């Protein structure tokens, strides 16, 4: 078991850590989820059919682990809202993720792009992180996300377009004031 872990760690750990960090933007949580990914890898490595590369297999597991996390988090939040029946007030309750002080970005333009990643849809965020932060190819991204290549291209285009529009809107707001 240890040799499998070591091989995955040596080859992909930093990429894996970075991917999950940009998905959840919290270091402690990233550490937990990375461990969860390794656990799933070790538990299912025997059944890995090697139809895809180890790297894309690992990242598709990572993707599912983060999706599971977000779904559980949503369910937990909704149960709390249902319990207290706060109605519309509940809408102002934010996700329990702390503000990401784990990362300091002083450059304003970089900060904007970092923040606006969260406004993108889950697929768009995945594609933008894998393509441009992780420098994965379109084909690798498509395999990890179980998308067609054209779907990756469209999602990438839409994600960038969404960020561009938000930047433009902010600039317009700034100009107006």
């Amino acid at each position, binding site marked *: 078991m240890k040799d499998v872990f070591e091989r995955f760690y040596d080859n992909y750990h930093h990429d894996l850590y970075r991917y999950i960090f940009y998905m959840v933007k919290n270091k402690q949580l990233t550490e937990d989820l990375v461990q969860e990914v390794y656990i799933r890898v070790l538990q299912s490595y025997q059944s890995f059919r090697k139809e895809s590369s180890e790297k894309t297999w690992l990242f598709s597991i990572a993707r599912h682990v983060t999706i599971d996390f977000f779904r559980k988090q949503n369910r937990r939040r909704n149960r709390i809202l249902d319990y207290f029946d706060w109605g519309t007030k509940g809408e102002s309750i934010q996700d329990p993720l702390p503000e990401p002080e784990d990362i300091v970005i002083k450059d304003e333009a970089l900060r904007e792009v970092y923040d606006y990643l969260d406004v993108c849809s889950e697929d768009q965020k995945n594609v933008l992180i894998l393509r441009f932060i992780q420098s994965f190819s379109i084909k690798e991204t498509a395999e990890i996300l179980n998308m067609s*290549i054209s779907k990756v291209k469209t999602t990438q285009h839409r994600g960038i377009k969404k960020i561009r529009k938000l930047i433009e809107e902010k600039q317009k707001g700034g100009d107006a004031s």
Partner: protein
Amino acid sequence: MNKNSQDQKIINLLKQLPKIEDDIPKEEIYQQIQRKITRTAKTSQPKGRLIPVFSTLLVVIIMIIVIPSFFDSPSFYSNMDHDENGAELMQADFNMEESASLATDTPAEVEKVENQLAIGEDYVRFVIDEVKPETMLVHGAIVEEQMQYVIPVTFLFDNKVDLSERYNELDDYLREEEWKVEENILQGATFDINLMTNEVFLDLPENFSLGDGSARAYVFSDVLAMMFRPLGIEKVIFQQDDLDLGPYGELDELSLPELGPVNYKLYNHPEANRSFLTPVKQPDLSIEEALLNMKIEDNDYYLNHTIPADVDFTIQSGVQSLIIEFSEDTFLINNQQYVTMIESILMTAKSYHYETVIFENPTIDRIGPYELHGPLPVPVAINPIDHLP
């Protein structure tokens, strides 16, 4: 700065985001993982022993509650409306189901349901049962995000305006962003429908392209088929000369594929504001296999099952009627989930050319708007869209 250079700037910024590093040593991570694996193994063991005990207790409790009710009210299920005990039990069942669904429904899903409710209705309807003489149906089609499934939608208009004109307005009524589906593949196209010759003339925009892949090409013909086959149209004639349609090559006209047997699941994208009954093409399945397939979810494509896993049935096939006999231990509930089940069964039966569906041995008389004692005609159309502003 033009859009392309702005987009490139955003890409460059994404590439410049800090390269976050993990500062926990490799050995420590491995030990933590080992601890978690061991802990999981230990905690999962006693559960296995307790489950049979709990199950047995649960069965005993259920029997204590249920058996006297059966003796008190033997005709409980067939006389639900008139039997007081039965009514109470029915209410209890319903509440249990409702509580269960409330526990799992997210506010987004609740909002999704509310978005689809017409005023004065208690259930989301995924089908249209009848068309009044002064109205006409206009059939559209949308494509889910991964371009594997085409979803038919239906608009009801008054029939004072020309049918082609209505089709040409369709793009204004599609809300792809809210529904989390692909952008309209036929954006900017215009249609001229000839019901005498069963043809439609299609004028595609200048920059129209199907790209190199096959997915978009299949979707293209399926979208056209779903839009025009219900009108009896068999052929699309392109207005442009030598139109290059990617994998199809250069075409002047396209024969529309027939709408073959399908089974229906529920496209329920978590970020969408509504859901849609979605045909799953498996033409080789028998009607029974198709119905069984509707119990299976396909989470990769956000396709929910439409028949609950614990609903068991056998089928008999008549000339025009499909007879579905529920098993003795299948208890139906009058709620949204079962309304959707009935509608998806009716639509699936329609795709196999049945005209009515008869449900036998139902434990209740009515599910939503459907009276279960008697043949139910298959619907006229699917996924009605409220297009009014």
